[in-house]
């Protein structure tokens, strides 16, 4: 299982802040996971198709080619706007 978190505007668009997903080779990189989520159709396709989407793996910023292991915590969110 992996844990996926969604924040800010993205959580609002998906109407979901968190989910668990069965781990498999089909989602063992950021890019593959994103494809799998987008394939769910609306609202996933649109919400995750932003050029400015950021991703973290185990609470560290990650690029789309980052590998994902079983048990990882992955998060998707828009560019940060704190401070």
């Amino acid at each position, binding site marked *: 299982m992996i844990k996926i978190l969604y924040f800010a505007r993205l959580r609002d668009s998906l109407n979901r802040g968190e989910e668990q997903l069965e781990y498999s080779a089909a989602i063992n990189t950021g890019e593959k996971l994103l494809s799998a989520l987008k394939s769910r159709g609306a609202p996933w396709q649109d919400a995750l198709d932003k050029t400015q989407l950021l991703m973290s793996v185990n609470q*560290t910023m990650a690029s789309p080619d980052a590998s994902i292991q079983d048990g990882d915590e992955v998060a998707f969110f828009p560019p940060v706007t704190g401070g």
Partner: protein
Amino acid sequence: MISIQQADFDLAAEYQALRADAPSIGAIVTFTGLVRDFNLVESTPENTSVQGLFLEHYPGMTEKSLAAIIETAKTRWSIINTRVVHRIGAMHPGDQIVFVGVNSAHRGDAFAACEFIMDYLKTQAPFWKKELTEEGERWVESRDTDQQAAERWKTD
């Protein structure tokens, strides 16, 4: 010291803590960010009046990313200590949002490290602002100028 908190903070207390750290301290630089009464987001040039703000964050990653930012600052500049406080939750115009304080033997290092931490916090730390305006709620868009400010510090 890193603190993520709903409560307001006391700049004087943060400053006194930085002052008491070591007798070799010659310079203390502080940055405080406040909620403005107008919006500077480039995509909304109308400067809609902001009535309130809500700060969301990613618990766990927030502390981790701030600790990494501070570690980087400590390797790049000769600084003694840092204090970072970032508020979350509901705030109003004029409220304090964020504090970054740095002490050092040298003023140049204190200035650079303090600005570096703020610039990286703005682009790397998982906080998101939602504004309450006359027209309703909206998520604040990130700004290119923040990205550029962080890029300045890149070393090759």
